[in-house]
């Protein structure tokens, strides 16, 4: 186990030196402390090379200290918990954490992929578009290899074992960011009584105050943050969420947050959610998201050991780490001087302070006076070293970064850079906020004009701590006032932080030809790529982004976007705001898919609907299928029988004796009111007002465009009371449709439609013995053909349960649908089964039901596929003359009466042949021929009744085709059958059996 050689003797308020934590990186066992991130622990151990870059496989180290990090992304965890692309700077250390580097082969130190980097000149931005211009076949081959080079981490291979949770919440005020500004806002709004949720990405509150020494009310920033936290915790109306990121801003004040509850633990306890996905509706929001330091580009500025200055300070302040022994600090602002003193005080050798500004600021002068090595008007032109920095080339430069003098090399193992700050305007932008450009800061800040929410603090370009606190209090107060709360602002604390001073922008230092200066570290975009994009006219920032992939990595360009577009602006000779920004999109920081899923996958996400007899079906071999969300048994597995044999048995039972099927899934609507009959006349093609009470009628409904929408039987229970059945598929949409007509189109009709699908369990018994069975089940009901004829109904006890009995038939046999309160469904089912034993009763499923209806030529949505008119189905006669109905007007549109439409027909296979599933009908018996499809099958079955395979289908001019001998072809299945076109009514076309 190595020693933490880079750790200072003392200090680092974020770590607990009494709690060592051991972990591994690329199999090496290392040690850090509780409170460390993986990045700080790696640095503590002097580990710098942590990964390889996306495209050129260049060695990379740690650049930053938070979620902006573009380089240090690792595999964390093992097995099913191994997660790729995890930011070392965000991942907290836990005992036995396993980390490994990504995107290299065979090893991190020696990566063959780096050959791409060496031949990098061949791979400028957009090189793919210029090469491999070849046939798709060859491209597929090249692509395979290219794909392997890309990507970053290895994807997991197993399902995620962790638990995830959703949480919906409401508040008056959401505050994003728990730095000084956010804390001040929360204190003010919280004290006024507003319901506040304060959200901070990091484990601790305090923001930048934790990363550099600052003073508030005479306390250290860190202590003040802790005190603020205690105050907030004492307010019942304030909820503080740390380790939580505001990910997205959506319509109508919806914010998504991702809370990491378990990522800092070795293994969350089984019941504990690893991450919680919050959807917060907030009446108002304050974005106190701070600013992200930006680097300055110079040659080889991606070498491990080049870091952001604020990160270097932060590692010292928070983790007690000196990120190098000898540093060259390079900045365009005054923060570098405070940093230099802190680092020097902690024992780092500050080789030089390279201040790009042509003038000597007050802070610079003081530093000079203190004998610090200050080089104003200078820039770092290149980093020296490969896998680690060992020197910095420094030269005088002009305001645009152009070399003005001789370069000298300073020995160092750390180059800390500060090019100013980019306000974290992401959330403001996501909320449709516009951007304003501040020339003095060379940064985009939220444009308050028309902004939906308030931004405060560093995100507005206020880099001074006192100003941040003041803005925070003001924003919190204003929000409370807007809520109508009486807000007496707590007194503003006094504060001192460091000063930035005048910071004339510097994006890049001129580099020698051929050298690479990185703008986007993660996606390996260099200043030259920006130049190339410009040269080739990809000059819109959006083209720049897409051509070079600038800002498209997992960091979404947090440290790089502004620099890239500033460089493009310069090339175009336009001011930066004229060039504009690319679009900020959710999420602010990537988060796991599973957090968003929150376990709502499978049945937990999409419920399964089960009938009251479900458990019986399941226990008796039912093989289920999904039918519009319902689980329906297709058939019942029976030992010794193939599925087809079992289905045949089920069919024959119905034809010969009696079968029972669970049809509870059919949609059922209770329709009542004085105008109910009139209403039905207007929605069905046929008439219902003439229907006698106690009788039912089959009806067809159209869409407004004249195509068949749905069909079913509606029974008239009373003059003003109907019971409508719909297909399983349409039960939900039918209700909406009818309500639409009643509420919007014909508000004068007095009708109530009430969905009652859930209320009724429905079993259909059918077959020649169905009447006898019903007689046994319902001794008190007169079931004779006279008392209960086809399309008649009765009420009474069935199996001792109050029931509605409808006599109607889908199978073509004598059949009854028995409806009971669903709580009694299983009782009815069992009652039917026990009484059925005496009648050779068989239970059948949807497959047999399908076969029975195909034999009868009844259509379903397979036939009425949304393109079909009643006439196409041979039901033209059902469109009653002398009354209008929905869709009728369309039936006379030219194309609905044009010749050659497809019409419903039957197909019967030659003896012993099997009509394949999904067949097309054609003239040639050749599976490979290109030929005209004359029609197609819509549903097919083996008819045990007829001993043949049969099908329904649609054929051009089908009714004139009866008798034609053709072929049913399924080339994709390699199956075919000779078929004859016949009437779709295969079985008992006169319908005598069902009426008997």
């Amino acid at each position, binding site marked *: 186990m190595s020693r933490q050689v880079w750790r200072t003797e003392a200090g680092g308020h974020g770590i607990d030196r009494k709690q060592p934590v051991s972990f591994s990186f690329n199999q090496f066992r290392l040690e850090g402390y509780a409170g460390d991130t993986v990045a700080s622990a790696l640095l503590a151990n002097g580990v710098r090379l942590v990964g390889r870059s996306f495209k050129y496989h260049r060695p990379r180290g740690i650049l930053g200290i938070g979620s902006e990090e573009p380089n240090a992304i690792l595999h964390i965890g093992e097995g099913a*918990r191994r997660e790729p692309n995890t930011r070392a700077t965000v991942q907290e250390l836990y005992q036995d954490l396993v980390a490994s580097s990504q995107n290299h082969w065979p090893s991190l130190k020696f990566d063959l992929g780096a050959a791409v980097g060496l031949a990098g*000149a*061949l791979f*400028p931005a957009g090189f*793919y*578009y*210029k*090469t491999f*211009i*070849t*046939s*798709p076949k060859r*491209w597929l081959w090249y692509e395979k290899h290219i*794909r392997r080079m*890309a*990507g970053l*981490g*290895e*994807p*997991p*291979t197993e399902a*995620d074992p962790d638990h995830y949770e959703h949480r919906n919440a409401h508040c008056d005020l959401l505050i994003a960011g728990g730095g000084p500004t956010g804390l001040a806002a929360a204190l003010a709004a919280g004290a006024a009584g507003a319901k506040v949720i304060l959200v901070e990405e990091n484990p601790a509150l305090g923001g930048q105050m934790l990363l550099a020494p600052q003073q508030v009310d005479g306390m250290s920033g860190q202590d003040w943050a802790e005190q603020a936290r205690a105050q907030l915790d004492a307010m019942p109306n304030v909820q503080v969420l740390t380790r939580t990121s505001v990910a*997205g801003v959506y319509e109508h004040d*919806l914010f998504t947050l991702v809370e990491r509850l378990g990522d800092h633990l070795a293994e969350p306890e089984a019941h504990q959610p690893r991450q919680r996905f919050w959807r917060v509706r907030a009446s108002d929001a304050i974005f106190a998201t701070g600013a992200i330091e930006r680097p300055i580009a110079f040659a080889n500025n991606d070498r491990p050991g080049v870091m952001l200055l604020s990160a270097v300070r932060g590692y010292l302040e928070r983790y007690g780490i000196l990120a190098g022994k000898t540093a060259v600090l390079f900045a365009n602002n005054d923060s570098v001087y405070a940093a230099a003193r802190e680092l020097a005080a902690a024992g780092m050798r500050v080789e030089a302070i390279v201040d790009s500004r042509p003038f000597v600021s007050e802070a610079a002068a003081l530093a000079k006076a203190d004998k610090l090595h200050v080089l104003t008007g200078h820039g770092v032109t290149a980093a020296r070293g490969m896998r680690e920095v060992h020197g910095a080339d420094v030269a005088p430069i002009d305001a645009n970064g152009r070399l003005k003098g001789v370069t000298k090399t300073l020995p160092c193992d750390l180059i800390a850079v500060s090019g100013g700050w980019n306000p974290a305007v992401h959330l403001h932008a996501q909320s449709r906020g516009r951007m304003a450009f501040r020339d003095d800061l060379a940064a985009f800040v939220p444009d308050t004009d028309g902004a939906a929410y308030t931004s405060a603090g560093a995100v507005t370009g206020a880099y001074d701590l006192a100003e941040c606190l003041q803005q925070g209090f003001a924003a919190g107060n204003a929000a409370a006032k807007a809520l109508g709360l009486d807000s007496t602002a707590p007194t503003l604390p006094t504060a001192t932080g460091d000063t930035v001073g005048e910071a004339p922008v510097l994006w890049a230092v001129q580099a020698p030809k051929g050298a690479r200066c990185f703008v986007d570290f993660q996606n390996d975009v260099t200043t*030259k790529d920006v*130049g190339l994009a410009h040269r*080739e*006219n*990809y000059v*819109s920032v*959006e083209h720049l982004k*897409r051509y070079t992939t600038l800002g498209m990595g*997992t960091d979404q360009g947090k440290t790089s976007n502004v620099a890239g577009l500033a460089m493009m602006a310069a090339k175009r000779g336009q001011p930066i705001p004229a060039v504009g920004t690319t679009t900020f*999109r959710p*999420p602010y920081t*990537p988060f*796991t*898919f*599973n957090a968003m*899923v929150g376990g*709502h*996958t*499978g*049945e937990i*996400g*999409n419920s399964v609907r089960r009938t009251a007899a479900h458990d019986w079906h399941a226990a008796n071999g039912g093989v289920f*299928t999904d039918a519009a969300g319902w689980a329906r048994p*297709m058939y019942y597995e029976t030992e010794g029988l193939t599925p087809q044999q079992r289905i045949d048995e089920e069919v024959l039972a119905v034809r010969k004796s009696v079968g029972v099927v669970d049809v509870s899934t059919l949609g059922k609507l209770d329709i009542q009111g004085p105008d109910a009959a009139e209403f039905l006349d207007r929605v069905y093609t046929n008439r219902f007002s003439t229907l006698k009470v106690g009788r039912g009628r089959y009806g067809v409904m159209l869409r407004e*465009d*004249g195509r068949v929408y749905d069909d079913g039987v509606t029974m008239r229970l009373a003059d003003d009371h109907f019971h409508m059945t719909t297909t399983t598929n349409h039960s939900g949409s039918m209700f909406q449709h009818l309500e639409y007509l009643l509420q919007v189109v014909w508000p004068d009709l007095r009708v109530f439609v009430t969905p009652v699908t859930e209320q009724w369990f429905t079993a259909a018994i059918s077959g020649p013995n169905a009447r006898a069975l019903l007689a046994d089940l319902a001794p008190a009901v007169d079931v004779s053909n006279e008392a209960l004829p086809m399309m008649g109904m009765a009420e009474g006890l069935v199996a001792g349960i109050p029931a509605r009995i409808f006599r109607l038939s889908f199978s073509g046999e004598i059949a009854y649908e028995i409806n009971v309160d669903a709580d009694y469904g299983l009782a009815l089912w069992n009652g039917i089964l026990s009484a059925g034993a005496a009648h050779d009763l068989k239970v059948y499923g949807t497959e047999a039901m399908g076969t029975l209806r195909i034999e009868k030529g009844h259509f379903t949505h*397979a036939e009425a596929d949304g*393109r079909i008119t009643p006439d196409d189905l041979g039901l033209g006669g059902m469109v009653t003359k002398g009354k209008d109905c929905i869709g009728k007007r369309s039936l006379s549109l030219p*194309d609905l009466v044009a010749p050659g439409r497809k019409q419903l027909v039957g197909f019967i296979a030659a003896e012993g042949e099997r009509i394949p599933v*999904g*067949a097309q009908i054609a003239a040639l018996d050749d599976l490979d021929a*290109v030929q005209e499809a004359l029609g197609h099958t819509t*549903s097919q079955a083996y008819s045990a009744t007829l001993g043949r395979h049969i099908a329904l289908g649609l054929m051009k001019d089908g009714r004139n085709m009866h008798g034609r001998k053709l072929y049913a*072809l399924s*080339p*994709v299945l390699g199956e075919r059958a000779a078929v004859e076109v016949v009437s779709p009514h295969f079985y008992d076309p006169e319908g005598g059996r069902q009426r008997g």
Partner: protein
Amino acid sequence: MSQRYSIWALARNALTHHESWQKAWRSPEPKPAYDALIIGGGGHGLATAYYLAKLHGMRNIAVLERGWIGGGNTGRNTTIVRSNYLLDENAHFYEHSLKLWEGLSEDLNYNVMFSQRKVINTCHTLGEREATVRRYNSMRLRGIDAEFLTREDLARLEPAMNLSMDVRYPIVCAVSQPRGGSARHDAVAWGYARGADSLGVDIIQNCEVTGIDRDPVSGAVTGVQTSRGAIKSDKVGIAVAGHSSQVAAMADIRLPIETHLLQAFVSEPVKPFLNTVVSTGAAHFYISQTDKGEVLLGGELDGYNSYSQRGTLPSVEHVIANATEMFPNIGRLRFMRQWAGVMDMSMDGSPIIGKLPVDGLYMSGGWCYGGFKATPGSGWCLAWTMAKDEPHALNAGHTLERFRTSYMIDEKGAGPYPKAH
């Protein structure tokens, strides 16, 4: 083409630090008049200009783009290319388009990274199997490639796929179009732009069309008004996707189109593990992995009229929930970016490519989910129609007039409800 792209050219240019590459396309000032104007610099508009110039000898053409070329749906789609359609008009049209794709990189001398890695449709019930197999059989009868995939085939092709039957949407089987796949969306726009430019076409960005000028007597088109001034032409093609209604309205034409929001999103990039493009009707999503490694996912429309080019939550949540059931290993990948497009949803789900009831005015629109794969075919057909003032047989059925006779090209049978297509 003035400067050919190739590995040799790249090597040569590497020696000069890539400083002698020419503009991929120029950015000229608009001329006062052109022989033809195309409104909309998406893939379709650019392809139309390219084919007009290349195949119909017209050179004095401009493409007018409101923003930056390729920034509309071309730049925000899930890049699935296939020709697995059921109905005649669509099947022939999309197959023609697919054939153009197969030669596109070479034709344009620009690698559009068209990858025929297979498009797979999974089936989750027997009914779905039947309907899908039927559609694929109809393709085979037309000579279009289509194959059936068993669960064993799927396990081999997509090892990460969850083939357990004990899930909400178990996979019964699948069908695939092996020639289907995906392409690099931006490259399609840029490649066509460069191709068209080199044939003399003016590509004019930041030029919004604000009006269509017509002859007061004949009613025929005489030109357009734009944010950069008036431009004359007696042939104007509209290829503006979700903005078809707005632009057509400039010539007093109402369309059977509604504009809806469709979204897509990507995960962080990872090493390749998804080999094909998989789409599923039952669970409402499609998924593939880009060459850069991101998992690219899309789903269905949000379902209400919208011109907001922003992602929303519900449909993305729905897609992810279902996708993690089919590919459980993606659960720990991270959601990196979401966005949306402005979709031109037609009333039957099929496009309108052809003449409009104003002389000299043409359109290609109503592409719904499917217009990226149509890019070459649409450009090809619209160019033909504009050049000859009559449609080609391939787009003869895709008229606006079909809505007057109710001749619906309705692949789904969903009826006149755009959100349902």
